[in-house]
């Protein structure tokens, strides 16, 4: 059986500077893969290549058996590849309920309806409530998003992704910017993700990576330098070099 999601020999360079260098990886249903790497390793570029916001210089991206290398972001979403954003991108004047409802409607192909209200569609409302409940956002469902805490906005990002019922979920630093006290809620939310879902998580927070991922890929200078279990990653010489070697540069890079 071919994997659900597969990247082969992906390259991207900006004016001669190779930012993504021959990266390959694959995901099957139920996988929990974490992609880590020091600052400037090319993680953001990689995300953009995978989601279709950037076109690669060479290489292929396959999703559910189809080649999607040149397809745009929207089509990839429809084929089941859904992402969350590193910096929350939400509709700040709308409520969490509206967010999730919009996602559910979009998935069901009903978002173009010009009459009727989602509140009057029982299955939609049931699903919306279920998802909000799952992520503990139900009591906030009628506040405007700009009025809720950042940690809860991060949860809403995940809720939105879930509402689209993806086959492959790409979580771009789900805990970024969330205060330490609230990361536990993000972890809980991640634990509740459907087991058959293939998840690729980009993350800085190593605690979260160790708890969540079954497999880790380390990216440095656009190249995959490690692919293996979380247990082995800290022992790997190249990973240590990439991270420790980069400490000296952190100050100037930031």
């Amino acid at each position, binding site marked *: 059986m071919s994997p659900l999601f597969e990247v082969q020999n992906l390259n991207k360079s900006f004016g001669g500077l190779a930012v993504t260098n021959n990266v390959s990886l694959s995901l099957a249903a139920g996988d929990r893969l974490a992609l880590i790497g020091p600052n400037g390793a090319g993680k953001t570029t990689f995300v953009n290549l995978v*989601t279709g916001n950037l076109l690669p210089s060479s290489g292929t991206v396959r999703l559910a058996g189809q080649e999607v290398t040149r397809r*745009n*972001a*929207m089509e990839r*979403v*429809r084929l089941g590849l*859904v*992402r969350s*954003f590193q910096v929350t*991108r*939400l*509709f*700040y*004047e*709308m409520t969490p*309920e*509206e967010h999730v*409802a*919009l*996602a559910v*409607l*979009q*998935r069901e192909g*009903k*978002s*173009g*309806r*010009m*009459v*009727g*209200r*989602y*509140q009057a569609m029982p299955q939609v*409302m049931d699903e919306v*409530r279920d998802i909000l*409940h799952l992520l503990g956002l*139900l*009591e906030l*469902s*009628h506040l405007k998003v700009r009025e809720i805490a950042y940690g809860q906005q991060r949860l809403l990002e995940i809720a*939105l992704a879930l509402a*689209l019922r993806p086959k492959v979920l790409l979580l771009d630093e789900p805990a970024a910017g969330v205060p330490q006290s609230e990361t536990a809620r993000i972890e809980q939310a991640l634990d509740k993700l459907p087991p058959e879902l293939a998840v690729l998580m980009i993350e800085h927070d190593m605690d979260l990576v160790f708890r969540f991922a079954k497999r880790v890929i380390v990216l440095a200078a656009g190249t995959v330098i490690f692919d293996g279990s979380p247990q082995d990653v800290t022992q790997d010489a190249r990973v240590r070099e990439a991270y420790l070697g980069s400490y000296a540069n952190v100050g100037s890079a930031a």
Partner: protein
Amino acid sequence: MAASMNQTLAAGAPASRNIVGSLAGIATIIVIGIIGYYLFPNNLALLTRIIAIALLVLSIDLVTGYCGVATLGHAALFGAGAYAAGIASAHYGASDPLLMTLIGALAGAVAGLISGLIILRAHGLPQLVLSIAVIHLFHEAANKASSWTGGSDGLSGIAPTALLGLFEFDLWGRTAYIYGLALLLIVFVLLQLLVRSPFGMLARGVREDPLRISAMGASVQSVLLRMYVISGVVAGIGGALTAISTQVVGLDSLSFTLSAESLVMLVLGGTGSLYGALVGTVAFMWFEDVVSAANPFHWLTMVGALLIAVVLFAPRGLYGTAAALVQRVKGGRA
């Protein structure tokens, strides 16, 4: 379980409040319409004109207020409707007012599609410039096709027949006014349904964050284009109403001036709300009428001062600021 019951109740409350609110709004329009009829029985022609422009401003609100597209060329849609309805009557004898309205709506939709296809190719300031270019092209086209449009002399010879075969469009403009009011009400009710529908929600999403919308698998471009076509229908109806009620169409209906003025009316009333569009139109046109009658030589200065005052003291527009005030008072009480 109890908690979730409470949530359900809470969820139901704002929904029903919305419906009550919208019914109240419709009732307000009807009441104001009737008061207008009896209070200014001799000004119905001007009131009808306000209605036609209100339809144009509502139409701009759909793309600007709900989708975040900045445009200074929206009169193209209005003028297309006005000319189509006028040409149908003057050249083809299609003078039934309902038919003319339909033709206007269709032409508005086509114009919406064309200008949407062009204007949506850019964002921000370049988008504004594209819209300006579009309105100038439409204007020039109408000026050039003078055998159809009458060019700068205006298209005359429009003679709508009696509405439903019963009501003549008379000198007092009663029929035109009531017809216009009915059109406005129908459009308003439909638009209220639209902006609360899933599609309306999608459009608001596009305004706030297009990237997020495409990350949800929806096509931003398609949403905007559909909205442009709907907006064209609304503006086209407004244009047809002008053609029917004044029986003449001029190049001004395809002008940059009208585009800019109606955008100003929208911002004055408050973007992103249908009431804002109506309030803005009525306020601006009323102000213009009063001030230009009182002192035509200086009314421009006063309109300018009004605009500055609105930006300084009511930045969300008249309706938006009033609504926010009401909200705050209510919030304070709760």
